[in-house]
């Protein structure tokens, strides 16, 4: 048994490494459009995976996760554009701001249960949104911050021996590394004893208190971690999108991330990433075909909630399981 899990672990590590290398090879042969698309998907996947730490692992349905994404995006955008700080510093600050915002909100939110937790996360996200929306002098208000510069990434194109790489291509590699680090961190957390604690809280919070888990502290900690990663994703996205807008923090964005996570399946580690990729792809293709994109998404969601509550990943697992059992 022990050998088998070890094997499993090594297999997974191998697969993750292969995935990382495969994604890393993309800009070397794929047309720029796909590089840009994947860059988008990578960042959003990382964001929805961070939400899954709360929703899927701990059973905390946050309805305001976009707030921390937005805080990170504003922090990074402002430091880069207005303060002229280097990209690395701005990105770290993005994570810090996301985490700080999550610490403030989380301190209060984790005291509540179920729908009240959701409502309070929503309320906090509205407050953060209102601040960014109103603080014209700093954030540009509704117009947001546009024209955020790409960092100077020639050292990357030099290093990999492709001086012809555009900023967009080099930036893809930067995003990939940052996202990979975030995902690795999340993986370490969920497969550690902390991960087990999170699941116990999800299954039965009262019982976990009985067995000595300080549920509030654990919940707060995971809320901050999720906020930090969302902030980092926001920082990456600010530069990728070349601008930050208050929409990034609005409740509709929070709903969007939640949908992506659920679409992929919150019962698994990779599900939300699959969901983000699939929905972004679907969006990309349907928007070019029809103006009734939200109808299409609505129908997909409806079918999902009616028939496949465990998402794409659940479907995939059911499929592989039946095959195996045959």
């Amino acid at each position, binding site marked *: 048994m022990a050998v088998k899990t070890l094997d499993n672990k090594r297999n997974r590590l191998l697969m993750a490494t292969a995935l990382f290398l495969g994604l890393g090879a993309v800009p070397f042969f794929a*047309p*720029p*459009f796909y590089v*840009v*698309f994947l860059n*988008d998907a990578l960042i959003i996947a990382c964001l929805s995976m961070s939400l899954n730490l709360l929703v899927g692992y701990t059973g905390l349905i946050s309805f305001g996760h976009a707030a921390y994404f937005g805080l990170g995006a504003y922090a990074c955008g402002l430091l880069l554009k207005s303060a002229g700080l280097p990209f690395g510093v701005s990105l770290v600050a993005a994570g810090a701001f996301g985490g700080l915002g999550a610490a403030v909100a989380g301190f209060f939110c984790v005291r509540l249960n179920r729908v009240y937790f959701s409502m309070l996360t929503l309320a906090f996200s509205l407050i953060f949104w209102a601040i960014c929306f*109103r603080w*014209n002098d700093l954030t*540009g*208000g*509704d*117009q*947001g911050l*546009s*024209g*955020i510069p790409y960092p100077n990434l020639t050292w990357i194109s030099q290093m990999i021996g492709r001086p012809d790489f555009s*900023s*967009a291509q080099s930036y893809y590699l930067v995003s990939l590394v940052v996202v990979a680090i975030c995902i690795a961190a999340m993986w370490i957390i969920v497969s550690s004893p902390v991960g087990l604690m999170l699941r116990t809280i999800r299954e039965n919070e009262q019982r976990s208190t009985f067995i000595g888990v300080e549920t509030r502290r654990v919940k707060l900690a995971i809320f901050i971690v999720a906020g930090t990663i969302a902030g980092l994703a926001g920082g990456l996205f600010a530069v990728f*999108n*070349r*601008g930050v*807008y208050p*929409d*990034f923090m609005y409740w509709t964005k929070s709903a969007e991330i939640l949908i992506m996570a659920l679409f992929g399946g919150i019962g698994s580690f990779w599900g939300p990433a699959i969901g983000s990729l699939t929905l972004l792809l679907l969006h*990309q293709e349907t*928007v*070019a075909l029809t*103006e009734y*994109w*939200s109808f299409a998404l609505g129908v997909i969601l409806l079918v999902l909630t009616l028939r496949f509550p465990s998402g794409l990943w659940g479907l995939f697992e059911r499929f592989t399981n039946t095959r195996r059992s045959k």
Partner: protein
Amino acid sequence: MDTTFMQLKRVQLLLGLLGTLAASIASAQEPIRVGFPMILSGAGGQFGAPILKGAQMYVDEINATGGVLGRKIELVPRDTKSRPDEAVRVARELVLRENVDFLVGTFTSGEGPAVSGIAKEAKKVFIAVAPKTDRLTAPDAIHPYVFRAAANTTTEGRAAATIVAKWNIKRLATIAPDFAYGRDATASFVAHIKKLRPDIEIVDQQWPKLNESDYTPFITAQLGKKPEAVFSVICCGNFDSFARQAGAQGYFKSIGNNFIGLGEAGSIEALRALGGEYPIGVYGNTYDAFYWKPKDSEVARLHAAFTKRLSTALKDDTPPSWAVQGYISMQFLVEGIKKANSIDSDKVSTALKGLEIVSPQGKITMRAKDQQATRGMLWGKATKRDGYAFPILDGVELIDPTGFMD
């Protein structure tokens, strides 16, 4: 053996020639693709849809005459959902995947600068159709590829000030949506009116949020300050709700109809939607009005012909005011391509600077110094007139901004 080899070579040559020929024919026929990111859904769709129709009408007209440089024009529209990040996403998709040669479009002051960044990155000419924010072409944001066919907040606010300056009032209030366009237009107006009429006092300023549905508390708060006139930037489809609620509160009556509405408050769309409830006697502006009778006979002829074509194309006897913006923007692009004799964005950019077109509303110049069109707007006083199902702007005239753009 030798002969077969020669034959083979000849066939190859022939094939090659055919190939090149085919390719050159194809490229001659391959259309020039223009990406058109525009609001097509949500509340903003009511403006985006007619803009797209106006642009399409120009494209159809130019294609019917054989296109430009022997090539047809093809519009590739995309919905921006009035979100700047979505505008960036579709603009990138248009440039990188659809391989469009130019970008024309955007509506809000958030989308315009956002897409401008992508145009700069991709080195493709981008003509902004509707965003009025001064920031789009501000010195720190301007680059060779961004042009604006819309009016801007400076010119719109100053034009309003020239009208209000003639009013016999002292106590003035302002109301504008709390977003960039509303704030900038108000600031430009206030600065200009203080210059023209130092005796006028600003007694109140209200800033409801954009798409507010409940204006009553703002209206009562403003009336409490007893203004004699009001400057408004309630725009973007919000004028309807505002006017209904203000009318019910006796707002327009208590300021003696000394009200000037920017942000297309005088557009056919707004007039038609409010119908009998439109406040008679207030001033409003619009980009176009099918009933406008320009004084210049040549402009009158052009405008009448345009209105007729638009009515036919849209199957609408009282065609929307926004279509002309799509039309003029495409006209700038095509005439720029013609002048440059190339679809290379660098050359088109050079050609556009200082380019003068004869639009359906007369001559408009794309200024070289700030890449801003000398786009005026129509202003007039709402009046009931026989023969129309809704009020129209009386004595509507185009205020040419050339004199007060700098």
